């Protein structure tokens, strides 16, 4: 005590009392402070990250001069670029050639490798890529790899990589350096590779010195998507009138990184969870203050007897919680800043951008200060005011601690009474637990909410998984191979069957199509899949309308993902599709489930619509020809199917066919799942924070129970209880509370799962997710709960076992 005499000398005795009380009960102080700080630092992390990420991402995105629109043409040259650049409605334009190749990893596995040839690396005007390391620009026979490719596939500067073009020729390129392309979804989200070469290298590989991608920046209002759409559509029409073949027009969200809106949504979701944890920390403060105030009755009486007024006494105890708040703030601020840094780096890495600027906004500090100081005061207000009302008379004649009325007739009391087979002392302990009903409630609720949230995250995972399954279950096939040009169906089928492991196959037609909206503007791009009408390779669950029938002509069955994207279109409506420059009216006759891959982020799949093979082949003039081959294998495992896929690739290659990569459905599922886990992981992290608050609350309650039962424990000790048995009593009590919270949490998890699934579904997939009750989550939470119970009981149990008879009798 003498140690802090000097520091405290300047303080009024009542404030000294506050500090002493905090110091006397260090464990209690630490618990409260930590619990409050969790919500405060979580807010700090998320709010700071929101601002910092947004700032960095948008600054960086604007700095690359992002394209307002991109057109994919068959071929064009510098003359066209000059013409386009001179158009008054176009501010800037640039041409590039992108082409698909494959890259062989050191493991021998082939991965998709999209190469882009850039004419002048020193004068990129739209969608700039930036020099990361190594040499720049790439020389002859050299390639720059997108930096996420290098780290994900473990390819380094100076490595030689073997690539194979679509006409089957192999080339060795030297990795000259790394580049950063902010418009690309990084390899760890979609495991493709991206690289950049010079036109000289392209020509060496048999390409031509022409472009196929035209990126433009419109003049005028660059934020106005409708304006951009109008300009781009006009340009497209003009190009087509001039005889160019335009395959595709893409207008992304203007001046916004493709993942920016997803990022905001994730942040919002996490913010909600952190707000919950903040609110729950109030419960712990309430419990703690209620207990402190109950123990302080006599002291309050003394203070009043020597002239303390009610307001002064309230001030003393508000001072106590204020110190809790200040300490919580001191803990939360650095964690908030450091955590935000970590989180920002994680996200920046995930999305593949750089953090050039990191600064915690002042308003975040201000909010955190407010949060840290207000929560304790609000939560403690009732117990403090209530106790400060006690009269001196009541306080000094108060023998024994009659904190809450002991009711023999209450329900829980009787329930505990009924429990059989528990040792007497445990029963005693439980009875006390249940008598403190308010405290029990306030301990249970945070744990139950943490549990419900945790379980709900598993529910969301199950729902997303179900969505993936639904998407995948459309296809009753194992492998698919897309040809770069049509081949005779009978021929490719027969050849496929000759590969060992392939047991069945079916030839389909495919086509890219663009929807032309009712107002004549360009809508989303879709892929048409045209299987034979009697196919059993597709098992579409029809949600509305019907499946394709023999004799169907210009009708299509769409996925619900497309209809969600196109409000105003329903089953039975007409829809205009542009295929190969020609517009035709089709009719939507049916709706299936989701067809594009479920996942987070852009580029995870275009919606698919199904049409009749005969009709599509006829309008394309490719009857009897296929651009896609679906196959079934005799192996069901991923590795086995991958093996067959590679054999199939080899075989087609040996025949001189121009093919893309053979994809196995299993691998498609895996890619989707990887993306899903990023989101699930973040949500689990927040659920874990909630659990921490719950666990701190439990520890707090257990400690209070022990403190208030000091005398009782002393008496047990006096009549022969061992350390071990006293510890046991405490731990059993903790476990009982936790099991109860688990049961409540499981019930609560049903609405929580529904809410979270809907939020996630609407945000990321634009639809409600199917409800899935996560039995797995319930089981895992049970296991975690028991761990939490034990951890939370250890300290109080230790404390209880140290109580001596003498101490217990001196206790008041």
């Amino acid at each position: 005590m003498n140690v802090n005499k000097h520091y405290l000398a300047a303080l009024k005795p009542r404030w000294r009392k506050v500090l002493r009380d905090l110091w006397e009960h260090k464990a209690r102080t630490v618990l409260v402070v930590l619990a409050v700080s969790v919500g405060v630092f979580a807010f700090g992390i998320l709010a700071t990250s929101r601002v910092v990420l947004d700032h960095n991402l948008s600054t960086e995105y604007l700095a690359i001069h992002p394209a307002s629109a991109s057109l994919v043409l068959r071929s064009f040259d510098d003359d066209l670029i000059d013409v386009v650049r001179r158009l008054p409605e176009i501010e800037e334009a640039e041409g590039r050639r992108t082409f698909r190749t494959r890259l062989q990893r050191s493991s021998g596995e082939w991965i998709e490798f999209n190469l882009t040839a850039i004419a002048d690396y020193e004068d990129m005007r739209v969608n700039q890529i930036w020099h990361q390391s190594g040499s720049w620009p790439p020389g002859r026979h050299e390639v720059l790899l997108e930096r996420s490719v290098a780290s994900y596939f473990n390819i380094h500067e100076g490595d030689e990589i073997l690539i194979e073009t679509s006409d089957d020729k192999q080339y060795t390129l030297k990795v000259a350096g790394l580049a950063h392309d902010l418009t690309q979804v990084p390899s760890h989200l979609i495991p493709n590779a991206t690289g950049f070469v010079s036109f000289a290298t392209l020509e060496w590989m048999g390409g031509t010195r022409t472009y196929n991608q035209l990126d433009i920046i419109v003049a005028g209002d660059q934020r106005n998507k409708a304006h951009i759409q109008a300009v781009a559509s006009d340009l497209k029409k003009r190009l087509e009138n001039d005889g160019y073949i335009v395959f595709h027009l893409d207008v992304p969200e203007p001046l916004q990184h493709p993942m920016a809106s997803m990022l905001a949504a994730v942040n919002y979701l996490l913010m909600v969870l952190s707000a919950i944890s903040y609110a729950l920390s109030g419960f712990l403060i309430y419990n703690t203050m209620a207990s402190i105030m109950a123990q302080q009755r006599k002291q309050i009486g003394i203070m009043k007897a020597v002239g303390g007024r009610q307001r002064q006494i309230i001030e003393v105890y508000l001072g106590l919680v204020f110190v809790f708040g200040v300490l919580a703030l001191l803990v939360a601020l650095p964690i908030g800043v450091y955590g935000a840094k970590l989180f920002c780096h994680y996200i920046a890495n995930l999305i593949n951008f750089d953090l050039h600027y990191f600064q915690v906004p002042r308003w975040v500090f201000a909010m955190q200060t407010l949060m840290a100081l207000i929560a304790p005061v609000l939560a403690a207000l009732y117990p403090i005011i209530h106790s400060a009302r006690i009269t001196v008379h009541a306080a000094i004649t108060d023998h024994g601690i009659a904190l809450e009325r002991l009711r023999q007739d209450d329900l829980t009391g009787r329930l505990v009474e009924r429990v059989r087979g528990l040792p007497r002392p445990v029963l005693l302990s439980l009875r006390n637990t249940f008598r403190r009903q308010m405290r029990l409630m306030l301990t249970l609720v945070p744990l139950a909410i943490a549990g419900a949230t945790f379980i709900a995250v598993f529910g969301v995972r199950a729902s997303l998984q179900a969505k993936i399954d639904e998407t995948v279950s459309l296809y009753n096939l194992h492998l698919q191979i897309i040809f770069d040009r049509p081949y005779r169906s009978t021929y490719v089928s027969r050849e496929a069957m000759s590969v060992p492991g392939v047991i069945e196959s079916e030839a389909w037609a495919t086509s890219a199509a663009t929807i032309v909206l009712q107002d004549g503007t360009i809508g989303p791009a879709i892929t048409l899949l045209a299987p034979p009408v009697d196919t059993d390779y597709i098992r579409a669950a029809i949600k509305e309308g019907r499946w394709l029938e023999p004799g169907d002509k210009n009708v299509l069955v769409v996925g619900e993902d497309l209809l969600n994207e196109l409000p105003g279109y329903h089953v039975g409506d007409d829809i205009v599709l542009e295929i190969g420059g020609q517009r035709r009216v089709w009719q939507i006759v049916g709706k299936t489930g989701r067809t594009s891959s479920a996942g987070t982020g852009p580029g995870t799949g275009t919606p698919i619509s199904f049409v009749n093979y005969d009709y599509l082949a006829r309008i394309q003039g490719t009857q009897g020809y296929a651009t896609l081959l679906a196959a079934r294998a005799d192996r069901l495992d991923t590795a086995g199917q991958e093996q067959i896929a590679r054999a199939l690739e080899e075989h087609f290659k040996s025949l001189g066919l121009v093919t893309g990569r053979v994809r196995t459905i299993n691998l498609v599922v895996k890619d989707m799942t990887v993306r899903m886990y990023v989101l699930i992981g973040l949500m689990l992290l927040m659920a874990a924070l909630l659990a921490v608050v719950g666990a701190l609350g439990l520890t707090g309650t257990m400690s209070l129970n022990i403190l208030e039962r000091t005398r009782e424990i002393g008496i047990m000790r006096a009549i022969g209880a061992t350390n071990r048995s006293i510890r046991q009593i405490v731990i059993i009590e903790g476990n009982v509370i936790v099991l109860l919270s688990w049961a409540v949490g499981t019930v609560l998890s049903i609405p929580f799962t529904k809410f979270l699934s809907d939020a996630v579904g609407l945000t990321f997939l634009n639809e409600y997710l199917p409800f899935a009750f996560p039995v797995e989550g319930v089981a895992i939470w049970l296991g975690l709960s028991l761990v939490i119970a034990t951890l939370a009981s250890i300290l109080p149990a230790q404390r209880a076992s140290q109580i001596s008879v003498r101490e217990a009798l001196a206790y008041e």
Partner: protein
Amino acid sequence: MSQIIIEESDRIIRGGNGTYRHGNRHLIELRDLTKNYKTPAGDFTALKDVNLGIDQGEFIAVIGKSGSGKSTLVNMITGIDRPTIGEIYIGDAALHTLNEERTAQWRGRNVGIVFQFFQLMPTLTILENLLLPMDFCNMYAPRERVERAMRLLEVVEIAEHAHKLPAALSGGQQQRAAIARALANDPPIVVADEPTGNLDSRTAEAVFKLFEDLITQGKTLLMVTHDRDQAQRIHRTVIISDGEIVPDD
């Protein structure tokens, strides 16, 4: 500073014509005081029609059997408890009309209380326990306070224990500390409810001497005691039986 002066006016001042503001002639005047407690078995009358006048400088012993109402009576005077019926005037204050808040404030300045069980704040040192009333009532300039508290501790002869926590002191030492604290704000009235009841006779004698010294300083003293010897050394004795004051012979 001005605040202290204004609040000084809370202190008891004798009126010009020998009466106090509310017309009471005695420093402490209880008029027709009755106290009922509600119990499960119905109302219990702990004090019945008590009338009592105490002048400044008197030393009063309150005696009576256990349960007769002694504590109840002194609790009326300190404002710790309130009468069911009747009026209490102390100096210029009509205690029965003050609310809890005003009472606490008034008590801090005007009455020092010593309980049977020492009732010190366990987490404050002895010195700090003495500073607490001055702090609450904003008495004396902060710099004077420590000096004053130390003087009081010297008077009760425990100055060397000033920086210890109450638990480190013996019962007698704690009671001395409690008396010193009762004097912290230099109140004109000191009320003690069995201050020596828990002490051995030698310690009790020493503590009693402290009270006798207070009288020489012009304080008014009210002491509940079971000790006949002590009572005989006190100016005046008030005997209570079943809640009623037994008239002097």
